[in-house]
């Protein structure tokens, strides 16, 4: 059995720890991390990488033409371009409250798109 080592930078918090990952083939056998969240991050990142995505959608009847929005949970990384295209089609109307759902279950991922502020 050969164990391969690789490194990964954790993006969970602003510390940005370097995680050392030992893999045996496709199986992760060990993660050296600064905290437990780092270990979880490594497993997630190597099997199903996800990112929080923030963008804007069109808003009508507000002070600004754009409403900032974000994903309620980390979103599958490979589908981010698709997500951004979907958000370009969205138009909302003021008033809207911070945290309210702008687009539910976006692209069937089960993840909601939320307003980032009152407007």
């Amino acid at each position: 059995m050969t164990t391969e080592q690789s490194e990964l930078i954790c993006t969970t918090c602003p510390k940005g720890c370097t995680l050392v990952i030992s893999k045996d083939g496709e199986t992760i056998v060990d993660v050296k991390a600064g905290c437990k969240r780092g270990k979880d991050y490594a497993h997630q990142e190597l099997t199903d990488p996800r990112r929080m995505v923030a963008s804007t959608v069109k808003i009508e009847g507000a002070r600004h033409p754009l409403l900032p929005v974000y994903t309620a949970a980390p979103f599958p990384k490979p589908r981010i371009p698709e997500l951004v295209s979907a958000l370009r089609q969205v138009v909302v109307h003021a008033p809207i409250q911070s945290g309210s759902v702008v687009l539910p279950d976006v692209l069937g991922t089960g993840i909601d798109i939320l307003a980032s502020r009152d407007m």
Partner: protein
Amino acid sequence: MPAKSKYDVVVIGSGPGGLAAAIEAKKNGAEDVLIIERDLEMGGILLQCIHNGFGVEVFQKDLPGPAYAQHFINETLSLGVEVLLDTMVLDITPQRRILAAGKSSGVVDIQARAIVLAMGCRERTRAQIRLPGMRPAGVFTAGTAQRWVNVEGYMPGKNFVILGSGDIGMIMARRLTLEGAHVERVLEVMPYLTGLTRNFVQCLLDYDVPLQLSHTVNRIIGSKRVKAIESVQVDERWNPIPGTSEIIPCDTLLLSVGLIPENELSRKAGVQLDSLTGGPIVDDHLETNVPGIFAAGNVVHVYDLVDWVTEAGYAAGKSAALFALHEREKEIRHVPLRADETVRYVVPHSLDKDSLAEGNVRLQMRVKSPVESPVWIEVRSNGNLVARKAEPYARPGEIITLTLTSRAYDEVQKATDLVVGVVKR
């Protein structure tokens, strides 16, 4: 217009530092708290920082900038903090008088018992890093581009080079890519990344934006609009290394080359600045060298996490509230001493109401013009006689002394002011 002419705590700026200061000032007993904000809405630069990563320390939640701001805006309003928007502070005196102006608020002239400076910082521009070359359109600070893309809905260009690996620069590289622009590369003059590592991963690696360390812009090319930039590798003393220059075609150059605390007002108020941080010199209560003037957030030094700005705002707000309450107590205990039209001045200018319990208080004054006949020197409160003394005459050249004794104690307790005058006997 502000509702009052005198406030316990006035906070200049409604970014994360200012909002936290106002909230904590209220919670620590300051009754009248006012925020003065030059923008049309509260929140400061957080409103254009639509990316996530805020609040991990304070809320253990990963929030976008506007949502982080919204939390504090809501708390500020629910606590009854007064807010003046679209109002620019023009001057602050060391005595904590504030002069401001705005379209809807008019001219604002108010007195603060304590002030929290929370003006934040602004971006270093092309002029400040002395970038050579032509002066075409298409050279922006990263923050300006961020405001356009995230708030106002304009794209500043199609093909970008970003100078500086600070957080705003890297975050804009991702943002512009998501909005359909191409980011050619990020150049960094230092041999290391100047922003957070996680932004390098999430903003550059994720979107295949190349980063070149120890590289800078040697020259901007283009007459009307940026056509290209010439990059060059530098040695450890930032000197260009010959033979390493490269022409990179682009239509826009973004500068993410540092932030400078915004302290014009601090200087006017007599606040001493640290030449290294560019911000006020503060003690552990975040008080500056000017008593009653506190400072918090990026106006003091540039933070990398907003959560720490909030913490600093809390600390400054609390200190300011305690200072203001102490001032209030002094004001309640002190009764002003004034001269009427017959007297030029009287010293002291105010009297601690408790002083007469401990001993006599000597008032000294000069009359305005000679009175060559017997006079009473009188101290009155709301017309009632508090004390008086007979003199054979009164001359401006000779100081007149009147001693208040414990017999005046009861009258002084009731007094709102004490007026000194001379009348003929």
